């Protein structure tokens, strides 16, 4: 009789553990991929840095942060993007923002970092080297 009860308890425990592992596997499968960022432009235009990018965020964009760092790693400017057209969406085609860089000594070769965090808390950061405006009509 004791052996029967012991075997029953072991079977019950095995079932609970199996369900737990299955549940964990399902949670992993439900996780959406982290945001994807393609920075198309990070160009100095007088007192602003023109940033253009495309974003795909299957977990919906929750926050976007732009950071400009010098070649020595020092942060020169940051800007949090709160515009409603860019937040809470699955995709942004043609993200276009001007970051104020007046008196911040931003120069060609500095680095723009664009960080997008989605509704799941997953963050992706993409970087691009900053370029200078081209005066092609002056040629």
């Amino acid at each position, binding site marked *: 009789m004791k052996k029967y009860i012991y075997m029953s308890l072991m079977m019950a425990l095995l079932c609970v553990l199996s369900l737990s592992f299955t549940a964990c596997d399902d949670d992993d499968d439900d996780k959406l991929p982290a945001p994807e960022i393609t920075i198309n*432009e990070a160009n100095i235009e007088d007192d602003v840095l023109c940033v253009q990018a495309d974003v795909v965020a299957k977990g919906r964009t929750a926050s976007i942060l732009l950071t400009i760092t010098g070649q020595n790693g020092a942060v020169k400017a940051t800007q949090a993007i709160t515009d409603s057209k860019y937040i809470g969406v699955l995709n942004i085609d043609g993200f276009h923002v001007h970051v104020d860089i007046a008196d911040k000594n931003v120069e060609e070769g500095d680095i723009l970092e664009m960080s997008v965090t989605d509704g799941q808390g997953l963050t992706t950061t993409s970087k691009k080297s900053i370029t200078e405006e081209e005066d092609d009509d002056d040629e």
Partner: protein
Amino acid sequence: MSQPIITDQGITANPIDCQVYHRGETIPFNYFFTDDTELGTYNIEIHNNFDHHTHSTSSVECPMDALKQPVKPWVYNQDFAIPTGLRQYDAKINIPIPADIDPGDYHFMVRLTDRAGWQQLKAVAIKITE
């Protein structure tokens, strides 16, 4: 589910590429929106294109003024709600052009977002003259 659609289906869409407006006039915005589930919101943004940048949603090339520095460029950025439960919407808004802005080339941007969060962008190149 897929991205919503900004179309001229059944209407005379406005503005369209290369249209010219005068300062002090009104832009009678009109586009038709559709979605396979439910429309959400739309945003209209107008910014200068004095630096000749592109947004790659149109293959039309309009004659542009020479590059120049903005002095008092027009910046317009407004969100609009679409009534709930709609899969089609005829969007009409009259947008007055300020009389004292820099004339020149501008981009008229429409971003349509559905309830699911998918977004569609339409960028139109217009010119504003004195």
